[in-house]
């Protein structure tokens, strides 16, 4: 398989959030609940910020241009309910607390923070900061989204269905659906006719072409339909006969959303079915079937820490206890060891098998953002004999870190691995949460597979009995820490059902379509058709470059962000020097914090559509985990809900006939 593709597979793991919005956050949260809680807290902080913003606008407008209802003889402002005010006040209280804590924390230098991380007070303050921030967000969300939920009992499935059905009819009667069928004709031709590649790549090409076609076609049609629907209703004035019926305006939004989602889902189902039919009945080259007609699964091992100097070493706590990852220090005797009871069956296979991993990097030295640290891998099977160490080193002379792309040398590596039961990969540069992989020679697995490890228990390395395969990871860069957890490293192996996997790949595309249609419908409640199309398209395409954009935004922060840089410029101080925490500097740091925060929030508006690009797995023959789909779906809901709430307000505040 193509190893350069391997990093993409990292998002496959359930345990590492495939959506990276925590990636650039403050890392060492005290989240005893693990990652999911971290995600929820983050979500409340982020979405809460947007809700607060919307709330401020809404309240200002509502208080300045009040609309009164007379309820029981008393005047009541319809736009600003008492509940909204109470919850906003609560949100503001928590935001003020957050602000105070931020002020307190900004008085500490990074070194102080690091040194006193274990100190209870600091941890408590950080804990309080995160949670008061999240609670502020929570109340802002309640205040802003509350009216939407209060309206829900008035929504009628029948009405939403009627509008969805109308959208369906429209698409059919206006012959929009024929577009889908016309493109299917293209798929009827064998991909071989267009791509003269290696035969084993045939299926990959087919999947690649069909999914690319489906992506472009479905997303563009979905975006077009969804962004023009409500503006068209407004332009052609048909909306006048709808909103003068007892239709809540949001019902119109939901009806359109579900209608177009339905059309596109049908088209997707049709295309997926047809694609499967073609692939399963078509005469594929045998090599292609061998290569791609499968869905491999990740194989996990058990992890423990070990250190020559410290018995019972359990990893370093850089933050608090209960955090998901523990750390090993760079250039020390610390190691993290994964042991595998079983290894993949590689009989008759010469291709290397990827060992994948994604670790966390914790820096104690500043200014190296974006640079990785170096880690080394030491793989040994239960048959490795420590007394042959010298012999092995001689055999590996000139073969360390050889790549499979160099077949002559790789063959030697494979032989050595099979003979000794050991394989080394040295000083690989890794990045934060970035999935990478090293190729493991098939010979090593053959060696590991033979014999019975329980009988070899006498042979011990580092004082522990060997499993069939053991992977030892070290950090080579001094003063840096690498955080690891059980599921951070795995071997890709095994097979599942291809067709089912193909179907799951389509679900990834379906997630993308949901995002596309939701954004487009939400935009179209305020913008004209063309504008909302462009807007949604822009956001959506931005999603494919999300990591790039994030990196770009982050690089603006060298020297501590724009405000700190400015202060440094004025004070003529160098970027490396830590500034004294005078009130001015603290204020400046907080401004920068605010700036970074806003920047991160702005980036949250961009959908992480890249993480739904699952067809790559299918094409490469890798299984898509169902939990992974589920988590992605939850994250998807977390993404589109704020859009829908925004749509609710934009639609409600809109003067239809103006």
């Amino acid at each position: 398989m193509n190893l350069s593709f391997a990093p993409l597979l990292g998002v496959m793991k359930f345990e590492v959030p495939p959506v990276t919005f925590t990636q650039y956050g403050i890392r060492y949260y005290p989240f005893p609940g693990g990652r999911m809680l971290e995600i929820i807290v983050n979500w409340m902080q982020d979405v809460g910020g947007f809700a607060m913003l919307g709330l401020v606008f809404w309240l200002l407008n509502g208080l300045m241009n009040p609309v009164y209802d007379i309820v029981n003889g008393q005047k009541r402002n319809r736009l600003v309910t008492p509940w909204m005010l109470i919850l906003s006040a609560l949100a503001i209280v928590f935001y003020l607390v957050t602000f105070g804590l931020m002020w307190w924390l900004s008085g500490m230098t990074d070194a102080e923070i690091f040194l006193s991380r274990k100190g209870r007070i600091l941890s408590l303050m950080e804990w309080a900061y995160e949670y008061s921030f999240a609670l502020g967000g929570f109340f802002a969300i309640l205040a802003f989204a509350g009216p939407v939920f209060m309206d829900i009992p008035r929504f009628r499935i029948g009405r939403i269905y009627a509008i969805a059905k109308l959208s369906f009819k429209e698409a059919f009667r206006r012959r929009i659906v024929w577009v889908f069928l016309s493109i299917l004709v293209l798929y009827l031709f064998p991909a071989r006719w267009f791509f003269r590649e290696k035969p084993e790549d045939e299926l990959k090409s087919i999947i690649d072409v069909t999914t690319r076609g489906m992506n472009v076609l479905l997303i563009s049609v979905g975006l077009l339909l969804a962004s023009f629907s409500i503006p068209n209703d407004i332009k052609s004035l048909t909306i006048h006969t709808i909103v003068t019926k007892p239709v809540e305006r949001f019902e119109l939004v939901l009806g359109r959303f579900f209608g177009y989602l339905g059309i596109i889902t049908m088209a997707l189902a049709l295309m997926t079915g047809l694609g499967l039919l073609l692939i399963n009945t078509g005469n594929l080259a045998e090599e292609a079937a061998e290569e791609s007609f499968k869905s491999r699964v990740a194989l996990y091992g058990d992890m423990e820490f070990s250190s020559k100097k410290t018995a019972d070493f359990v990893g370093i706590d850089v933050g608090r206890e209960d955090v998901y990852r523990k750390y090993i220090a760079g250039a020390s005797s610390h190691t993290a060891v994964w042991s595998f009871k079983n290894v993949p069956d590689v009989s008759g296979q010469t291709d290397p098998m990827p060992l994948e991993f994604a670790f966390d990097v914790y820096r104690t030295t500043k200014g190296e953002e974006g640079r990785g640290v170096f880690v080394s891998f030491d793989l040994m099977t239960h048959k490795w004999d420590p007394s042959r160490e010298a012999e092995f080193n001689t055999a590996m002379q000139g073969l360390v870190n050889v790549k499979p792309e160099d077949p002559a040398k790789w063959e030697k590596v494979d032989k050595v691995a099979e003979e000794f039961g050991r394989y080394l990969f040295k000083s690989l540069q890794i990045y934060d949460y970035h999935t990478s992989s090293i190729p493991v020679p098939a010979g090593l697995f053959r060696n590991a597979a033979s014999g019975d490890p329980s009988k070899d228990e006498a042979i011990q390395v580092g004082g522990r009995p060997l499993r069939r395969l053991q992977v030892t990871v070290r950090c080579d860069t001094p003063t840096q820490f690498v955080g690891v957890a059980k599921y951070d490293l795995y071997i890709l192996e095994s097979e599942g059902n291809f067709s089912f996997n193909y179907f799951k790949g389509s679900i990834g595309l379906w997630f993308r379509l949901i995002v596309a249609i939701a954004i487009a419908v939400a935009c179209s409640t305020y913008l004209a058709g063309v504008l909302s199309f462009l807007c949604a398209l822009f956001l959506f395409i931005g999603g494919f470059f999300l990591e790039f954009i994030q990196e770009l935004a982050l690089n603006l922060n060298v020297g501590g962000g724009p405000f700190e840089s400015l202060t440094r410029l004025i004070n003529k101080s160098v970027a490396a020097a830590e500034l004294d925490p005078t009130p001015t500097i603290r204020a400046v740091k907080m401004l920068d914090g605010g700036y970074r925060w806003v920047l991160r929030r702005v980036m949250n508006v961009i959908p992480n559509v890249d993480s739904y690009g699952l067809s790559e797995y299918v094409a490469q023959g890798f299984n898509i985990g169902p939990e992974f789909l589920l988590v992605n779906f939850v994250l998807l809901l977390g993404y589109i809900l704020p859009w829908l709430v925004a749509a609710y307000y934009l639609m409600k505040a809109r003067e239809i006939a103006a």
Partner: protein
Amino acid sequence: MAETAVSHSPAGHHQSHRSSTGDILKVGDTLVETRNLTKVYRDFWGRKKKVALNALDLSIKKGEIFGLLGPNGSGKTTTIKLLLGLLFPTTGDATVFGRPAADVRKNERIGYLPEESYLYRFLNAEETLDFYGRLFDMPSDVRKKRSADLIRLVGLEHDRKRTLREYSKGMRQRIGLAQALINDPELVILDEPTSGLDPIGTIWMKDLIKQLRDQGKTVLMCSHRLDDVQDVCDRIAILFNGDLQELGEVSKLVEDAARVEIRATNLRLTDDLQSDLRSVVEKHGGKLESFGHPTTTLEDLFRRIVEESKARPGRRYLPAADGTIKS
């Protein structure tokens, strides 16, 4: 076609909706009320473009036909849109059934025919009515019966399977009216109901509006066709340039108490008769202004021709320009 009754004993379904949106009103209760209702159209930057409606105070009572009258651009449609929540007032407020105009729940009891029928042109008449019926959350059997009745009422039985795209202006106005009545509304708001209709259609529409009143419904209509308004409305408001100019009962407003009209038949207007008449009028202290033979109106002629054509379909024999008769 106007023979069909407008309402068929309303299904219980509507009744339940009605009670959920408010109490049953009696004739004479206020249904629609505006206080100081003002609308200023602004452009994107908030600059004032046009004061379309200026401090309108109005109240419409249950059971009356209320006409909004005024020349083009006087603010009639603006008033209606404000009442329906399609526009938000700049100042002042409007309530319908005691609810604020922006509350969609009031729409349960309202039927609205827009200035032009803005309907989905890819639907046919049946589908259109079914769609709007669903928006009222009506159960399917009620929907079916109601839409069949309404299609009969507006005389579109033969065209019910054709998409609205193929409809003429008058046909669209008819289906537009049908959709406005789908929920058997208590308040019917009609914006230029007779626009696009031929004289027969206009008469039909006017009869229908009167029938609606006879069923106890309230009608708010606007028009700039004075004869229409005069024929059907109980009360009118005359708008000019956004300002209310006149408000009152039609009969009182147009009655000319200083003049008397006499019509007689089987008489020729001879000199004798003229001088007799003059002397009688002068004896009673009046002054004879004019007399003569009445002409029939073009409307009557049009009506007669249509009636005859219905009785004898086919081409009518018309005299050619040179006076000869061709077949």
